[in-house]
Each structure stands twice: as structure tokens, then as C-alpha cells.
């Protein structure tokens, strides 16, 4: 486990959170093994660190730099939404980011979980881009970049966002 201020990175997520007395994310019950799991506070200053990690992970899987950059943007926008809207910019909320390497469907998977206020799933949608005004672009950017996006309520509170992106050059089963 690596500690970086309020963030920690580890490959066996079922150990440290529980030891620290923090309720761990529920995760996806079908996903027994999580390849990379990061837990951090809802502080904007950590976003650059997360972007570097996502960029490196995506590049290792074969995404071109430009595409890896867009994936970073999508993850970053999703985390911004959690910080700004979920935790109302409070710096003490917990966020869990899990990255799963491709399996049979050749997709990299990003799961973002929080314990922030739950929002009505029907209200999460892109706005009309013809209306030129500040804000409200995050959901659109995420949807344009990722191949699949799914928001859901976590059991016990909080939200879970699952985003998947197909690895370039890989066939889908």
C-alpha cells in the first residue's frame, strides 16, 4: 500500500480499508478481483495524481496518447462531479476508484464509488449543447468518450459509476 497524503493505493482492497475502520466500497459483486483500487478524499488537489495513474494504465493497455488523454478526461470529469455535486465540495468525502483490466469483452473498466448523497438517476443526462453556457458538460464528455456508462445507487448509500472503454484493435466476443 502506498500512502500519499489522504490517498492510498493498493492491490488488495479488502484489507486496508477495513483495518483503517473505513467502510469499504461494495464494489461489483460479480467482480471478485479488482486490478487496481485507489481510495482518496474528495479534494481537487488529488485529481492530477489520479489522471497520471489513469493515463499510465491506459497507455500500458495500448491506447494511443490522445485516446488515453480522453479517458483521463472522462475519469476526471466523473470525479469532479462526485466532489462538486455529490459531496458539495466538502474535502472529507471518501471516493473509491477501481480499474479492472480487460477480460473477455476486451474493455477496460473504471468504477467510481462514493458515499455522497444519492441523486435521481433520471436527472443524470447531458444538456443541450446548442445552449452555449458555462457548466453542465461533464456528463456529455463522459458519454462521448466512454463506450458504456452506468450510474446506480449503492446499497447503503452513495453512488456507483461504471465506465467501460474497448481496447483498440481488440475484437468483441
Amino acid at each position, binding site marked *: 500500500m502506498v500512502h500519499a497524503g489522504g490517498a492510498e493505493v493498493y492491490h488488495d482492497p479488502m484489507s486496508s480499508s477495513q483495518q483503517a475502520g473505513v467502510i469499504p466500497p461494495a464494489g461489483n459483486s460479480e467482480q471478485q478481483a479488482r486490478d487496481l483500487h485507489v481510495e482518496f478524499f474528495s479534494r481537487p488537489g488529488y*485529481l492530477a495524481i489520479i489522471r497520471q495513474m489513469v493515463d499510465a494504465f491506459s497507455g500500458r493497455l495500448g491506447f494511443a496518447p490522445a485516446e488515453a488523454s480522453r479517458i483521463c478526461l472522462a475519469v476526471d470529469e466523473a470525479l469532479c462531479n462526485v466532489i*462538486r455535486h455529490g459531496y458539495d465540495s466538502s474535502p472529507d468525502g471518501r471516493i473509491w476508484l477501481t480499474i479492472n483490466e480487460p477480460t473477455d469483452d476486451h474493455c477496460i473498466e473504471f468504477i467510481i464509488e462514493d458515499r455522497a448523497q444519492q441523486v435521481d438517476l433520471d436527472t443524470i443526462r447531458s444538456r443541450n449543447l446548442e445552449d452555449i453556457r458555462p*457548466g453542465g458538460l461533464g456528463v456529455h464528455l463522459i458519454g462521448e468518450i466512454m463506450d458504456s456508462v452506468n450510474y446506480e445507487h449503492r446499497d447503503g448509500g452513495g453512488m456507483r459509476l461504471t465506465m467501460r472503454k474497448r481496447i483498440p484493435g481488440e475484437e468483441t466476443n
Partner: protein
Amino acid sequence: MNINVETRDSATIIQPQGDVDLASSPVFRARLQEAQEQAQARLVIDLSSVQYMDSSGVATLVECLQRSRTDGTPLVLCQLHERVLSVFQIARLDGVFDIVATVDDALTA
């Protein structure tokens, strides 16, 4: 985040340095608004030193564009890195802003 402001050929040139994200965009927004209030006949934002911009940065620039239209002061963006330009393209704002290649182009656009 550092933001340089200079005046050249009756234009105010603003050059932010570093990533524009949720952490830095409040400073970017405040400094940009301040510079815009004192701007010359043209406002140029040189993004050559910005390697990353998220939607909060784009929103700040949309605000700036709206003020420039109200004030009648042309706003031109220049020297965008590919990954920054990509954000404008995905948001379908690349045709809304006046985006040119160089500062010299921006001064004459």
C-alpha cells in the same frame, strides 16, 4: 497557477501556465475576470502552457466569451495543445470560439 498578462498591439494577452482543472480553475476564473475588466481592444488567451483542461476550465472560458460579446471586445484563443483542443471538439465548442494557431494570428484575427 501562474497567469501572465501582457499588453501588445492594443491587445491584452493572457497566458495561464499549468493544468486547468477543478483545483486551479477558481484562480483561473478570478484572474481572467480581473484581466478582462482591464482589457484592451482585443483579448487573447495563449494556451501554449496549458497541457490539460477540464470542463471547469472550458466553462470559465465560456463565461469569458459571454462577457466579451457583451463588452464588444473580441476574444481569441491560440496555441492550444491537441489534448486541450480535443475537449473543445468533444463539447462542440471549437466552432463557437475563435481559435487560431499562433499569438500573431490572434493579434490579427
